[in-house]
Each structure stands twice: as C-alpha cells, then as structure tokens.
C-alpha cells in the first residue's frame, strides 16, 4: 500500500441510510446517515489517574472488563455480581462511593447478547472521585438485580429505566411505570420503538396517529 493513501480505520465502519426517511413518524425530513464505529472495548493497564487504585481496591471477579476513555473510568460488571460490587464500592473505606447519581439505560440493538445496559454513575465525596458501572443484559432475558437496597435513590431511577427500556430490576420494591401511563404498551426509548406515528392512548381514550387522523382540508 502506498504511503500517501489515507489511513484505513482499524475497525470497519457501518454506513447506512441517507437523506429522506420513510416508515417512521420522524418529521425532520432527514433519515440520517448512520456511521457506526464501536467504542473502545477494554483498556490495558495502567489506567492512569486514580483508576488503578479503584480497580485494585475493588478486585472483584464480577468486573468483566475495564474501559478508560476520555478520562472516565467504566467498570463492566456481570449482573450476578452487581449488588455485591455496588455494596463494596459504597462501603469499602478505600472506595467509598457514597453518592449515586442514578441509573441510565442504553439500548444497543446491534450488540447481540448484551443489548440492554443499565449505566450507574457513582461519586465518592470522601475521595472526590467518579466511576461508571455498566451492567449488560440480553434482550431475550431482560433481568438485572435491583440495587435499591444499596442506593435507595435508585428507586425512581430503576422505575424510569424499566419504563423506557423494559429492563426488569429483580427485587425492586415496586417496579411500575413512572413517566408513561400505567397501561402503556411498549418501552418508548428502545431503538425498535418509533419516534412518532403511534396512537396516543390514556386510560382507554385513544387519539389516532398523526397520519391516521381525519383531514380537515
């Protein structure tokens, strides 16, 4: 290969879509060019900063991989060990992540076997540090143990993640929908849920989707 050719990216880029959209309720008129390149999968040691101390201090079999990206530490934890790891992160004097900033769900439909993620942001006020804990679950078996017993603030956050992504947090004291109506069908922030074009329903009353409504013209 000649030296003056542009550098070939290490990982393949998926490229789909172009201008113009159909089949969704998206009214932006722009279907979007999807350029997908995976994020770093795991990082080698040393991680730098205080990250080595956290990983060494935690030293738990539940940590599947460690990603250090853009100055942020992410621990990928197997769901069987999630509660234990969270407890250790909170209670160990060398770690002391006493404040949790809640749960954020992410849906990666293209990552078979770990489509749904619950992402926890923890903060240690004692040591002034931050860590992100990520827990994956396959879409076919959407279960993650609840961490409300460790961080009571997760109560509403887990309900929200259940509401929007359908992840069932086992052991949650009352896992019900929080933002959507109780009788809503589907989990709206999953990638397979369209943006619009859905009839609006609330307690039996229904307003048809925008393209199904009667014309006043």
């Amino acid at each position, binding site marked *: 290969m000649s030296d003056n050719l542009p550098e070939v990216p290490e990982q393949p880029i998926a490229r789909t879509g172009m201008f113009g959209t159909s089949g969704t309720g998206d009214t932006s008129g722009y279907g979007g060019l999807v350029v997908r390149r995976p994020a*770093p999968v795991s990082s080698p040691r040393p991680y730098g900063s205080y990250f080595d101390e956290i990983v060494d201090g935690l030293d738990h079999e539940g940590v599947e991989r460690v990603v250090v990206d853009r100055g942020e530490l992410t621990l990928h934890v197997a769901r069987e060990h999630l509660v234990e790891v969270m407890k250790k992160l909170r209670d160990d004097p060398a770690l002391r992540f006493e404040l949790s900033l809640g749960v954020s769900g992410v849906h990666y439909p293209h990552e078979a076997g770990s489509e749904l993620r619950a992402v926890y942001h923890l903060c240690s006020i004692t040591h002034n540090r931050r860590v992100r804990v990520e827990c994956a679950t396959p879409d076919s078996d959407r279960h993650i143990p609840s961490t409300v017993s460790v961080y009571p603030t997760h109560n509403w956050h887990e309900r929200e993640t259940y509401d929007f992504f359908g992840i069932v947090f086992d052991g949650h004291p009352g896992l019900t929908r929080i933002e959507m109506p109780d009788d809503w069908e589907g989990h709206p922030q999953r990638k397979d849920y369209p943006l619009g074009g859905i009839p609006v329903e609330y307690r039996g009353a229904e307003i048809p989707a925008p393209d199904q409504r009667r014309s006043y013209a």
Partner: protein
Amino acid sequence: MTQEATEGKVYDVAGQDWDKLTEAVAESSEERLVINMGPQHPSTHGVLRLVLTLDGETVTEARTVIGYLHTGIEKNLEYRTWTQGVTFVTRMDYLSPIFNEVTYCLGVERLLGIEDRIPDRAQAIRVLTMELTRISSHLMAICTYGMELGATTPFLYGLREREMVLDIMEYITGLRMNMAYIRPGGVSVDLPAGAVDKIGELLKVMPERIKDMRKILDANPVYTRRTKDIAYLDLTGCMALGITGPVLKAAGLPWDLRKSQPYCGYETYDFEIATEQTCDVYGRYQVRVSEMEESLKLIEQALDRLTGPLKNQPVMIEDKKIGWPAQLALGPDGLGNSPAHIAHIMSSSMEALIHHFKLVTEGFRVPAGQAYVPVESPRGELGAHVVSDGGTRPFRVHFRDPSFTNLQAVPAMCEGGYIADVISAVASLDPVMGGVDR
C-alpha cells in the same frame, strides 16, 4: 358527590361545593382520609401529584406521582443533530435552561476531545450566563414559596428582580427562556454591545434588592414559623436518597461541583460555598439567598475578564469542522446569519456554501463512546449521560435531573408532619416538573 367504593367512601369535589364536602367528611366516623393533591394545584410547582394519607391533620403516608409532563425529549434528541440537541435540552428544566445546555455541551465536547480548545471568552460567558440564571432560578424558588404560603409581597418582589435578569438574557441571546445559547464548541453569539453596561446596572441594583428580600423574610415570624424545623432531612438521608444542591448544603455538607470538580474554569474564580446546619426549610432558603450573593461576585469577576483580558477574543472553537460557520447578527427580522456571511457563501465561495450546508444539515460526527460531565445547577447535580455511536446524531442522551431525584425525598420530609407543611417541604426542594419528567 359521594359514592361507596371497595376502598371506602369516595368524595368528589366539582367546585363551589366545599361546604357540602366538609359537612360530609365531618359526619363520617373515619379518621383516615386519603386526599389527592394535584396534578392541577397551584402550590405543587407544576403538574406534580401527591397522594396523601391523613390521620387528622398528620400525614401518615405521602406518595408522589409524576409523569404528567413527560414529553420524550431524550427520545427526540436521537433524531436531531448534536447541535440541534441544545434546543431540546434547554426545555427540560425551564427555570435554569443554561445549565441544561452547559452540561450537554460539556459532554459533547468531552466526546469530541475538544475540552482544552474551547476559547476562554466562551467559558467566561458560560459562567456569566450560568450565574445570572442561578439568580433568576433561586428568586423564583424563594418568591413562589412566599405565594404558596399566602404572602404575595415576596412573590411580586421576586418576579420584579427576576425580570431584570430575564431582560439581560433576552438582550444577550434573543430569548427570555429556552435560549439554546450554549453550543458545542462555545456559545452561539458574542455579547452584544451594551450588554456589559446592562449587567453592570444589575450588579449595582441587585445586592440592595436581595437585602430587601432578606428584610422581608429572614426574621419574619410568620415565615420562620412555617420554615424552621420543617421538612427535616439530615446528611445521611441526603446521601441515601441522592439529594444534592441547596438541600444537601443546608444539611451542612459543603459539596459544590464548582469547587470540588470544577468545569468552565470555575477554579479560577473566587467565591464561597454557602452552607447551613439546620437541615430544614429555613436553612435551604438561607443557602439559596447566600448563593445569589455569591453569584453576584462571580458575575462581577466574569465581567471583569470579559471587558479586560478576554476582550475581542473568539467565542466559538476555531475548528471549522465543529464551530458553525455563521457569524450571527441581529437583523430587522431577528437573530440570523450576518449579511457578510450570506454574501460570502452565496456569491463568492462555493466551498464555503457546501461546508455551511453540510455542517448545518448533516452536522458533525462525534467519535463513539460515552461521557458524563455534571454541573452544579441551582437544584443540585445536573448531568447528561451522552452516548455516541460515531454518527452525526446522539445515540442516547440521558439527563440526571436533580429535581427528579430530589422529589424522592418527599415522603421522608412529610410523613409524620402536618399537611400544611407538605407545601413547605415540596417548595424547599424547588422541583421543576419540566426537568423531572423530561
């Protein structure tokens, strides 16, 4: 208006029939009463619904119901470019829009890896607008609280002062709320001529106005009786429930991200963190007023820099692949591209036109990964968990809104207290439902 149900007797109120209701309830032998407060209630700060179980006047159980203002902003963000996202996030917590924009833009900037290249002038303007917004937000928190307890004077005073701040924001950004002023890479437009003088006027007037507010409320027996030792929540409770902001500071912990994990250059400013030890509503009020006074100091320092060393510097990153090419200017039909820029792309440079078109319609690409850069909003830690798949649109944006988390403290603050104090408790959390439901 009354009917029997399996849970007990149900009383309906349709308006103009309160006398009948009180008669009917008085006749009933039941002590336990479940009442529904909201979602249409003036003192629940928007569409918050509280289901209160009462034993006499004591609240034995307080349940909070939210979701009435869910608008799917996070979902919508995935269908627009990274820059357009600012216009969405600013509408979440509508009383402190600048903070939503800043935390989102800081996240995008970290993903882009351009954190070090944001011009200092843009950072100083961010600090300036954030602190102005903090004042207007705290004023709203304090003044509506007065109104909810039946006192209209603090409300009128507070709104008058808030109007001064909003006028300045309108002068700078063109809009009073939902400005979409902070953009990835900097801010959308430089301070207009005369803005510095207007802010200078505010700095002259505002300290006196805050003093007036203190004179009305600080030692007012009506106010202190409704606020002191009410809605107690100590540090342990705050930590467990993830409460941040004035509620945490009123529990005695000087935890403020501007000091502990600074962003936008806050480490170079001189200010104090206000704390109180009382863990009650009065302490939270004191923290808010002190924070406003500190914000004035910060505004003054930012203004000094903007008129001194940072004068005539850029407000948007130099990188042409990220910073929008337009130089905005105020025309007769509002804020838009400057005539010089239009002339450039329309009649002199084909490449500039293509570049403008691509950047505005398709947007820039953000390398895959995730970032979370929180800021200290008037209500506590506000952070955007921003995920990119390498495309031109966000893959997922989740807002950790302090109002959402703080509302979980309602049962801890209200149960065992009087029903009248529920209003104090909710007001002291200062929830903004736009941020809670998003």
